[in-house]
């Protein structure tokens, strides 16, 4: 090749690159339009994000509302401003002042002011109001909320609390309109879904679909990119998987995660998706009713704690995707979690289980020489029924004969809340915030919103409170280690940590800028997601 030919070739290549590069670059640029499709695992029924706790409710309304803060859609590990554009903290760490965005409007055109923030949080923090998510997190920490003026709100804390901002940024602590709360009394109805979020509530067909449409007056210009979001209500793993395989949904990012067998099936059916394994910051718990026989007897509770084979549960029910035994998962909580080497030596967690089974049998025989028959309750969602059958098989070895009773999802939660059960074979609890305090204040403390077993241990309350209030990181870590060790050494708690749940998820390759949150609730607003052609 002569020099002239080489130069011509180079020029041609350069021209080609110049033509192609903008097109390639254009693929990565946000593109408005399109409707994202995904699914809700059950029918929410009630839509009050302040009062409810099932994920289906939060998913149904996530894009409608904004909070004072949220987790950054571009980096979900970081807290970012939302309705509050900035905030300051007093030197003693007990007063947080939030400066609200101006010019924000509710979906019905009414102006957003600090009165809406005060009305929302006065409702959530009202001791008479049951708020199992936002309220359960904030009530131990917050003393009062004041509207200083139309665009400034102050939160006064009872003590300097490290989890306060992460809790406030939680997807459950959304701001509702004062005039809507006054008009409807609650947020249960579709008509009450008036928010300031990137999407407006368009439609709710019970048992079928929930639709959002783009909010053209969203306070961040240019967002959202999507024209809308459609959530199909798909109950049951086979239905959800069939929808995924058929291309009816563009992502699977929430509970329940896919199992390995489902992920493999999807991979065979579709090559246009990205499949990945992840934690969903969710703990698999077994509950014993400490208020009635046989589990008002600590020996019987101890027997179940010893007999439940957490490793088998993870291997079979979660197909290996989970961290057994840990009350805090080191992958999520870092060094706040006890080392797994220590946890796995504790009675109930150690393998092989022969010694634990033998001791558990003796405990049961001491009080029920012929064994005991109990009802084992479970909500018929996800693969809970399979987990329950495993639990029944495990308990049978120690003389506890379980009869399975299944509940429809919402009916099950109602039963748990009323204490209308003997043993709940499985109930996942997703963390609202990625903070070590979460699991204890949800499931172990006396006032815990999901302390369904109603066991009260003043020492657990005291240790959890101390750890919550500790601002020094090392001392906080020591406090949480002491709390975990105390619970594990007690061995007769009514809440039994079986495993932290992991699973498989997928996103359509056309989906851009979707980043899963650190909890299963965060980053479901899709405000910065777009669909490439």
């Amino acid at each position, binding site marked *: 090749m002569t020099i002239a030919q080489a130069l011509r070739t180079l020029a041609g290549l350069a021209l080609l690159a110049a033509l192609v590069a903008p097109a390639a670059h254009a693929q990565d640029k946000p593109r408005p339009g399109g409707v994202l499709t995904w699914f809700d695992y059950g029918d929410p029924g009630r839509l009050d994000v302040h009062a409810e706790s099932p994920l289906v409710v939060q998913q149904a309304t996530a894009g409608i509302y904004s909070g004072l803060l949220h987790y950054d859609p571009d980096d979900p590990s970081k807290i970012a401003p939302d309705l509050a554009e900035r905030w300051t903290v007093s030197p003693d760490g007990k007063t947080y002042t939030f400066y609200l965005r101006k010019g924000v409007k509710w979906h019905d055109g009414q102006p957003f002011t600090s009165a809406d923030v005060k009305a929302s949080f006065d409702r959530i923090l009202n001791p008479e109001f049951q708020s199992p998510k936002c309220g359960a997190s904030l009530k131990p920490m917050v003393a009062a909320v004041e509207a200083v003026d139309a665009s400034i709100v102050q939160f006064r804390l009872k003590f300097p609390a490290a989890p306060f901002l992460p809790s406030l940024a939680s997807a459950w602590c959304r701001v509702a309109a004062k005039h809507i709360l006054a008009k409807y009394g609650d947020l249960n109805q579709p008509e009450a879904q008036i928010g300031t979020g990137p999407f407006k509530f368009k439609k709710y067909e019970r048992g079928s679909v929930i639709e959002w449409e783009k909010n053209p007056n969203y306070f961040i210009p240019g967002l959202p990119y999507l024209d809308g979001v459609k959530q199909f209500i798909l109950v049951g*793993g*086979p239905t959800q998987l069939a929808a995924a395989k058929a291309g009816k949904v563009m992502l699977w990012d929430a509970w329940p995660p896919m199992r390995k*067998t489902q992920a*493999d*099936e999807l991979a*065979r059916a579709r090559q246009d998706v990205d499949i990945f394994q992840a934690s969903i910051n969710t703990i698999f718990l077994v509950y014993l009713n400490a208020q009635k026989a046989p589990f008002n007897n600590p020996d019987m509770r101890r027997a179940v704690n010893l007999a439940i084979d957490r490793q088998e549960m993870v291997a*079979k*029910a979660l*197909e290996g995707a989970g961290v057994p035994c840990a009350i805090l998962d080191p992958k999520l909580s870092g060094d706040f979690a006890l080392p797994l080497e220590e946890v796995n030596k504790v009675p109930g967690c150690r393998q092989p289980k022969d010694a634990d089974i033998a001791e558990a049998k003796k405990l049961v025989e001491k009080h029920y020489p012929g064994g005991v028959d109990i009802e084992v309750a479970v909500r*018929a969602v996800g*693969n809970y*029924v*399979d987990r*329950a*059958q*495993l639990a*029944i*098989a*495990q308990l*049978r070895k120690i003389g506890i004969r379980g*009869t*399975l*009773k*299944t509940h429809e999802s919402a009916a099950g939660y109602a039963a748990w809340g009323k204490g209308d059960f003997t043993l709940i074979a499985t109930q996942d609890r997703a963390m609202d915030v990625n903070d070590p305090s979460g699991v204890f204040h949800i499931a172990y403390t006396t006032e815990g919103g999901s302390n369904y077993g109603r066991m009260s241990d003043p020492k657990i309350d005291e240790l959890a409170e101390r750890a919550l209030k500790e601002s020094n990181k090392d001392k906080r870590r020591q406090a949480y280690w002491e709390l975990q060790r105390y619970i594990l050494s007690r061995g007769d708690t009514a809440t039994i940590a079986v495993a932290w749940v992991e699973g498989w998820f997928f996103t359509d390759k056309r989906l851009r800028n979707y980043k899963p949150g650190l909890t299963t609730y965060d980053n479901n607003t899709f405000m910065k997601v777009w669909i490439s052609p």
Partner: protein
Amino acid sequence: MREVSRLVRRQPLGAAGGIIVLALVAVAVLAPRLAWHGPKEAGFAPYLPPSAEFPMGTDQVGRDVMSRVIWGARLSLYVGLVSVLFGITAGSLWGAVTAYLGGAADTGSQRVVDAVMALPPIILALALMAALGQSVNNVIIALVVLLTPTAARTIRSVALGVVASPYMEAARAVGASRWRIICRHLIPNCLAAYIVLITTNVSYAIVVEASLSFIGAGAPPDEPSWGGMLTAGIQALETAPWMILFPGLAISLAVFGLNLFGDSIRDVTDPRLRGGLG
């Protein structure tokens, strides 16, 4: 023996059905000895394919599918026989007695039968299970409610013919009491139809139980119900097709055998084929 071999020659399909039914009964009775493991024992690896150790593989929680299919025969037969015995017997007595009493008693009871039979059976069964709760015994109760009106209607029509017969009139003429006539003459002459109803409805009861369990409204999921096993198998259709294959075959074979046997019983006992009542 001669009579048996004559029947087999006359009803070869019925004989085949009878063999299947006998096998089903044998499996059900001998389940504790035939099954290699308990029906709820979950100590094995999940989704194992059929092998020498697990001829029908294992399911999603690590239970031996063959053991559950064998124990499922016991559950199916228990549900089928008990529900049919109670339902058909109650319905037959109801139909026979009201047919004899006639008048308002007969008219009124037939309107009740009409009302119940107007409801689609599976919807009625679902409603009953929702009210009663999931358990094997509640499935039996639901089936009894379904079977009773059908039996009442069928036996009533047979009983009306018997009531009109000359020997019934003769019994009344000699002063036999109403209940003596019902017990000594009416009911025995409805027995053939009763037996046919029993044999032909056991398969129906098994299918209804399997259907209810399949949609999650029948026996609790941990019970070795063939229908319930199909539900679990659907979740792993690609991964573990044996979870559906073997319980499905079991249901098909049981229903096939019972139908053949029941049809044969009907043919043998039908008076039109035998030359009339004796």
